[in-house]
């Protein structure tokens, strides 16, 4: 049985003349343990799809089955509990609470369960250790680099042991070193059996994925299985059809540096506690 099953899911925004069709009868089935990249131009409905899958938004039409249960018409409280217990979110702009320390941020999802404070902090601490951030537990997010903040955000997404991790452009605000750190981390998580779905604009990042879904105007236009370590074919075509070092590539941040490492020996991201400026390699 598929972990996530979307059937003819549509999402409409606005009404009357201003109606926007963000998702147009999308059907997709995701198995446990997949590492999925969702690609597409801005405004093609990637984020809406993520929000619907993450139970942050309700589809206008269609059915959504999560672990065999219909969840497209849940009450807000039930949806919140499912988010708490089975889903982990990673956002482009990190979304840590600025006034809480890293460990408090990571423990945040647990604070909505009945877990005791001590156990919460212990769990959060071990999760931070897993992402290599244990020495930064009592830092405020403002005292960390982008990559480190995103590591903390990943720890938060994982702290409730979710069955699916949803990452909406997790590397969008990071430089190449930060992006690599994050993708390596997600890749590690995938290896130990987590299901990960991430949105990206960067074709290079499809190297990490086992499956790439391409979207356009609210529809899935292609669904491609791919080898880990290989840039997906369609993405590659896209990559090489445009100027290699166009402004967009620079904006996406990673392309040139990404070429260097997939086959080369990679330093473990957990050993690196580099900031945004730590991008210069040794």
């Amino acid at each position, binding site marked *: 049985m598929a972990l996530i099953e979307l059937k003819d899911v549509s999402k409409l925004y606005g009404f009357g003349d201003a109606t926007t069709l963000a998702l147009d009868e999308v059907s997709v089935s995701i198995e446990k343990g997949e590492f999925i990249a969702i690609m597409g131009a801005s405004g093609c409905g990637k984020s809406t799809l993520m929000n619907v899958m993450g139970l*942050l938004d309700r589809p206008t039409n269609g059915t959504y089955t999560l672990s065999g249960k219909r969840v497209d018409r849940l009450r807000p*409280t039930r949806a*919140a*509990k499912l*988010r708490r217990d089975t889903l982990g979110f990673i956002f482009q702009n990190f979304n840590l*609470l600025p006034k809480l320390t890293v460990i408090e941020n990571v423990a*945040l999802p647990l*604070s*909505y369960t009945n877990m005791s404070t001590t156990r919460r902090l212990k769990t959060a601490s071990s999760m931070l250790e897993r992402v290599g951030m244990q020495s930064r537990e009592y830092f405020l997010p403002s005292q960390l680099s982008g990559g480190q903040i995103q590591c903390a955000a990943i720890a*938060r997404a994982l702290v409730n042991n979710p069955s699916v991790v949803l990452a909406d452009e997790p590397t969008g605000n990071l430089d190449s070193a930060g992006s690599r750190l994050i993708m390596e981390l997600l890749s590690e998580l995938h290896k130990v059996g987590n299901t990960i779905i991430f949105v990206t604009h960067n074709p290079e990042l499809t190297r990490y994925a086992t499956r790439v879904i391409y979207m356009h105007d609210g529809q899935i236009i292609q669904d491609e299985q791919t080898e880990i370590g290989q840039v997906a074919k369609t993405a590659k075509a896209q990559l090489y059809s445009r100027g290699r070092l166009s402004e967009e590539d620079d904006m996406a941040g990673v392309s040139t540096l990404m070429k260097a490492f997939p086959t080369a020996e990679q330093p473990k991201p957990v050993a690196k506690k580099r900031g945004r400026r730590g991008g210069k390699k040794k």
Partner: protein
Amino acid sequence: MRALGNVTAALKIMRSSRTRSLFTMLGVIIAVAAVTTVVSIGDGVKQSILLQANKSAKNVLTIRPASLSDTSDGLNKINGGGSIGVLTAEDLKTVAKQPHVTSAVSLSVAGNTAQGDYEYKGPVVSVDGDLPAVVNYSVAYGAFFADTDAANNVAVLGAKAASALYNANVPLGHSLTINGQEFIIGGILNSVPVAPLSGGFDANNTIFIPKSAAASVAPAGAVIYQILAKIDDAKNVESTAKKMQSNLSKEHGGQEMIKVLTPSELATKQTVTLGLLAKLTVAAAAITLLVSGIGIMNVMLVSVSERMHEIGIRKAVGATNRQILGQFITEAVMLSVIGSILGVILAAFGCFLLGVFSDLHPHFNWAAAGLSCLAACGLGILFGVIPAARAARKDPISALRSQ
């Protein structure tokens, strides 16, 4: 467990925006402090009235027109005009004739201004020479006029009136003009303990003149506003009062125009004004509380819209509507709880200062403090609900999008 978490989170938020929290709490602080202080002052005054009632002659009956016995402030009513001379010289005779009554004096108002070294506004009361004996007034300097002095224009001053009228420390023998009539100061009374704010008759402010001189000062005739009767023994007070009441009513054609008050009844009457004052203050404080509650609501509404993104994040990681509601209500309640505590501390400090630097001796009233705190917390919940509900209802996606 979660409630405790909410409390610590709320405290953290308050710490991070101290100034705003303090200003939000200000209304609560002022309201709680005001209620507690005023009630405490009232308590202090009540206690000193009771103390005074216990100390002063227990065997003196006070006879007043019924219209004046409603409040203790009979003098002001007479000065304000409109009062009818209900008590007559006949009544004085009736009172004096009662069994167990050893002596009786009438007090009439003869004027309300006098000219010494300075002009003075205070009651001019014409009495018999027996007065000091009846009410235990002691004379500090000189002597109280005797009935034999009646023909002479002699005046006796209360302690405060003496210092207000003259430069001299002991103005014995100085002259005093009341309504064009000249008087010689024949005596000055010792200060008489009077409960502050009780609105009772204050001998310290009074100028006493002989009854026979009253006619020359007040051509229209001095109005008797009070008769004091001394009873031979304290145990006969109640029975005599009852008998006297019925006799006086009979003389006035069965109408209850005159009221005979025992010392304890008098003390109760005196606290009535005070109670009214306390009620007014409590009403004002209630309005302050209400306004401060609205203030809290306002700040919480601003806080909710400022922290919309945070609400979005919390919802995304699994907070239910109810948990968000709880968080924001806790914040509002914490504002009022801490405000109340600060208010009580302020009130305690205020009472202490008043006790040291004024003649009011507030008796700190814990019940008032507790009740006003409870009211403040109730308001915190009441006014915290609207912003909190707004936060809780917010759709997670749009909350996440707002910055």
